[in-house]
């Protein structure tokens, strides 16, 4: 299994989750996608929407200031 990165800190809802889904579609099952998001809507919705649609959230980490890294397992 491999790890991939995605930066959606410049995106707005709903493109945040759209871009996340596009990236998740490209990777294999059990691969991990690390998504950089900003505080607020994306930080709340990406984990929630991902879980709803059958992906697993492995962890959420505050990197600096308002930037977070969400680890999603396909």
């Amino acid at each position, binding site marked *: 299994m491999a790890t991939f990165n995605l930066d959606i800190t410049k995106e707005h809802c709903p*493109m945040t989750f*759209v871009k996340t889904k596009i990236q998740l579609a490209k990777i294999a099952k059990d691969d991990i996608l690390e998504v950089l998001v900003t505080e607020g809507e994306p930080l709340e919705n990406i984990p929630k929407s991902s879980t*709803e649609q059958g992906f697993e959230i492995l962890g959420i980490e505050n990197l600096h200031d308002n930037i977070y890294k969400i680890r999603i397992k396909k």
Partner: protein
Amino acid sequence: MNFTDIQIERYSRHIILKDVGVEGQIKLLEGKVLVVGAGGLGSPAALYLAAAGVGTIGIIDNDVVDITNLQRQIIHTTPDINRPKVISAKEKIEKINPDVKVKTYHELLTTDNINDIFSEYDFILDGTDNFPTKFLINDACVLSGKSFSHGGIIKFDGQTMTYTPGNTCYRCVFNSPPPKGLVPSCSQAGVLGSVAGILGTIQATEALKYLTGIGELLTNRFLIFNALSMSFRSVHFNRNENCPVCGINPTITELKLEEMPVCDL
């Protein structure tokens, strides 16, 4: 396939849906739907199929746009009067979505061309206005194992059913076209324009569900609605073993257009 950034934006509201997603949008872009009739039902259906990104849309219609069409055939506009409906429709579709490849057939659907044309498509959307062609579409689909959406409107009423191989066909329910004189001529009956929009949009939804493989199609049931009471009901119909085309001893084994006065809904 990889989406371009523009496609990601255009289809974002589909991609975000769990049941459509990236895979479903790819199926739509690879999908091929034939709209028979660019009229009251075909207009909204073609517009929504185009917006959804159905990759190939075929349109067959031998008519030109008439001013009496514009009250309900919303793909056409006033400057389109006297232009072939297929050309008018193709232009609108291409403006809505350049991803769509449009194939036009400026001709009548007949026993001679129907199988060749249908064979190029995954799903057929019946937006015709006359019984003989509706039965012809049904028979061609049953005999060649093709799926289609039936639709009909009159006054304030609409009905629709989806056929897929092995399920109830249109002839299972209606054995043959009604006799002359029994149906009111459609110019006398009239139709509320938006009723066409409701029904054509339901048919487009069935096509999108069929292409993406989601949900439950309107198979083995008729959806019937009345706009005055705004009531919808669905009526279950089993396959009919005496059906002349899909029953145990079919009498229809080759295509034939039945006689019936045409009407212009």
